[in-house]
């Protein structure tokens, strides 16, 4: 946000804040150790709000749960913003000094009254008002979100709508006040930091900035394409057009993890050449022309990863990869050497130092300092710099340093996959405590919590459909159908269903999901699928 892609605050700050707002996050199950810090904050007296369609185990800890209808986050955020303005609780001084676009934003949120919000989001007007007043009045407030905000067709707009609230109240760039996207994978932050984005070089340096690109070209002795590349969804579209014919997939399992599986599988099978580098023969690896067996980054490699608090930490090799498998770096170097690049043997520390020489925000992070300090938060410009515990203190500097932080008058819009009489139930997806993504890693340890994948329904819907718990039902969306046993979850409201992507071999949830993609982030709307649930009249097989 505001030009750098990372959460603003450290975990310690959530223990020392006054209001904790978890929006679209079930951190109790998906980020359990982060939630330890949240609970410490609550014990220290913070008031906690959870915005989630489900009454999750996180929501059960909240002072106030706002049970929002799936896909109405912008409506709710705008209504909170409007109420803050209507009550005169905005931080005028901060808005005038450090932001831009306020008047347009104010006009944009005018129609979002409490009554309108209640009607559209399902959240009682009084709860919206309480959230608005408590957030705005708090001395410090942390706004945290995860995939409940970003797995939508308007993911970036959702995020911008939340950022508006922090700008309105001055809850950013100060100790204890900030915006925290809690990242879902151990190095998704680091991947972005390193330039695994279509428009950025390492350190978020824009590839279309000629001076920055020239710096890399000089260091690497080669020409870098001057225009941004494709996002994942654009790659699939390019496959469809025939413009993309070869793919090299590292540590991803798109055939299982992407929405609208049938389409993705067809596109990947249609490639002229598919190379997959992975620990396992995943569903994607199964259709590859070449599979390169890789070692496990966290325990079989040397390097660094970056966490949700922007902390760069050392990853160390504890065991060797099994015979036949190689460390990712060794594979990449071997391929480069085979292509004639003469890279020699990989040296993780030398590569890191090369990164430090090119990415100013990593400049001060020598291996020696990372070891000694147990990790450093970026930006860290030189070896005398401590790293930044929180970002954007420049917005409070007098005079302001750098550009103003922009309000975004984002338009509201509803989920793409509409509910109707044929598909009347809203399916949303997420993780369970003991499992992870498509289950490639987590399915291999004997978790006592694990049970077969189910379609979770509200007890009321179960009764209405005359279902017994654990009865196998047919689940259909406009794209595909799966069968699954049902389970009743009192944390779900009528009309809302829940599934996970953890067991694609049992229940292929992503045959149902829609690949309605956010054009700004490339993320599909995993969180909002329209489904129907039907009894299976004749039992399958002989059981």
């Amino acid at each position, binding site marked *: 946000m505001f030009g750098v892609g990372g959460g603003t605050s450290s975990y310690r700050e959530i223990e020392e804040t006054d209001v904790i707002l978890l929006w679209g996050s079930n951190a109790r199950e998906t980020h359990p150790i982060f939630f330890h810090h949240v609970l410490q904050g609550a014990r220290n007296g913070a008031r906690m709000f959870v915005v989630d369609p489900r009454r999750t185990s996180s929501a059960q800890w909240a002072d106030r749960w706002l049970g929002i209808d799936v896909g109405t986050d912008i409506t709710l955020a705008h209504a909170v913003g409007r109420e803050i303005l209507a009550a005169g609780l905005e931080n005028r001084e901060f808005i005038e000094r450090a932001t831009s676009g306020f008047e347009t934003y104010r006009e944009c949120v005018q129609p979002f009254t409490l009554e309108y919000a209640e009607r559209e989001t399902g959240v009682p007007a009084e709860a919206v008002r309480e959230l608005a007043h408590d957030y705005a009045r708090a001395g410090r407030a942390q706004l945290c979100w995860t995939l409940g905000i970003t797995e939508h067709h308007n993911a970036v707009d959702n995020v911008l709508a939340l950022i508006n609230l922090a700008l309105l109240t001055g809850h950013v760039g100060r100790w204890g006040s900030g915006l925290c996207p809690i990242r879902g994978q*151990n190095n998704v932050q680091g991947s972005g930091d390193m330039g695994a984005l279509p428009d950025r070089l390492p350190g978020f340096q824009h590839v279309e900035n000629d001076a920055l690109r020239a710096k890399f070209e000089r260091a690497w002795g080669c020409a870098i394409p001057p225009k941004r590349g494709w996002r994942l969804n654009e790659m699939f579209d390019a496959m469809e057009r025939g413009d993309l014919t070869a793919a090299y997939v590292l540590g991803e399992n798109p055939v299982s993890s992407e929405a609208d599986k049938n389409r993705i599988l067809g596109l990947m099978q249609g490639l002229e050449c598919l190379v997959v580098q992975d620990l396992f023969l995943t569903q994607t690896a199964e259709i590859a022309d070449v599979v390169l067996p890789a070692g496990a980054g966290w325990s079989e490699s040397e390097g660094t990863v970056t966490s949700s608090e922007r902390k760069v930490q050392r990853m160390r090799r504890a065991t060797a990869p099994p015979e036949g498998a190689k460390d990712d770096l060794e594979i990449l170097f071997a391929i480069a050497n085979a292509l004639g690049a003469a890279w020699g043997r990989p040296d993780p520390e030398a590569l890191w130092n090369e990164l430090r020489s090119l990415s100013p925000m990593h400049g001060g992070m020598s291996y020696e300092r990372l070891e000694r300090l147990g990790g450093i938060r970026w930006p860290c410009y030189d070896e005398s710099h401590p790293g930044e515990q929180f970002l954007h203190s420049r917005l409070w500097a007098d005079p302001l340093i750098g550009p103003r932080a922009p309000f975004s008058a984002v338009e509201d819009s509803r989920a793409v996959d509409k509910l109707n009489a044929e598909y009347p139930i809203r399916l949303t997806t997420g993780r369970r405590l003991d499992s992870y993504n498509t289950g490639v890693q987590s399915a291999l340890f004997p978790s006592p919590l694990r049970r077969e994948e189910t379609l979770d329904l509200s007890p009321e819907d179960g009764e209405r459909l005359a279902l017994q718990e654990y009865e196998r039902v047919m689940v259909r969306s406009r794209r595909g159908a799966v069968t699954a046993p049902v389970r009743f979850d009192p944390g779900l409201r009528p009309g809302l269903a829940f599934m996970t992507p953890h067991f694609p071999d049992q229940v292929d949830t992503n045959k149902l999901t829609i690949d309605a993609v956010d054009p700004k982030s490339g993320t599909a709307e995993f969180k909002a699928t329209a489904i129907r649930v039907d009894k299976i009249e004749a039992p399958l097989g002989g059981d």
Partner: protein
Amino acid sequence: METNANPDAPDLKIPVPRGPVPDVPRRERAAAVEMTVDGRAVAVPAGATLLDACRQAGVETPTLCYLENLTPVNVCRVCVVELEGSRTLVPACSRKAEAGMSVRTDSERVRLSRRMVLEFLASATDVSTAPELRGYMTEYGAAPDRYGNGSERAATVAQPVKIDNDLYIRDYSKCILCYKCVEACGEDAQNTFAIAVAGRGFDAEISTEYDVPLTESACVYCGNCIGVCPTGALMSKTERDMREAGSWDEARQERTDTICPYCGVGCTLTVHTQEKRIVKVSSPLDQEVTRGHLCIKGRFGWQFVQNIDGGQSPGDERAASENDA
């Protein structure tokens, strides 16, 4: 950002300039409290305990129920010291230091008390997997046999080991009721409250609600109870199986700190390896993200890097050697 662009929004192609280093509030520096430990003068910050003062004076003090990442419950009484002017011995782990205090840690009264605490514990419980406690017994000359031997033996808490899931076992014959697991499961870390102390007196024991198996309890298998257990009463099933097979050998184990492969919180994992295979995962107590605590995936979810045929225990040397071949 084309569609709803704010005309005043900054150009993303231009790097944001460097701002001032953010001002992080310093944790308040408490005033110093001056006192003596075994005649040596020490100064500790206000709020520090006698244990902190002892450590500062370089005096080793045994502890069983105390841990840096838990709130002291002062139940084991092995850390007691003699405080001038106090009728009774006081627990160092929780008694706050006050100006002018004079503490003796090595008096005959302290040694006797510590020895008897250790003898009582060791006469009633199996301390075979509690190396620290056994070290204290040697140091204080504890002889639990004084309380009976063989058929004359004192009453014990011996009972069958509870093995009701694939991740960890509970062997309450080894439990000294230090409460650490209850604290870690409760307010000090996990806030799951799956276990508490049930019963009174000699019959007191750690129990799930209504003593149901873990699989029917509120347990979420974070294993933070194992992480704090000082006697091996709580132990991962992998470690237990290897011990049963005689293959667990800490002297041959190496520890490597790395970062958990699952979510993006960035928990430090200490990977314990023996013969190049992972046998255990823990987390350092002084790590600011975890404070020694992990979740089920971090503590137990490592088998995917070596369980090639799924499910076999690393304790099974035969299976292990086949895998390595």
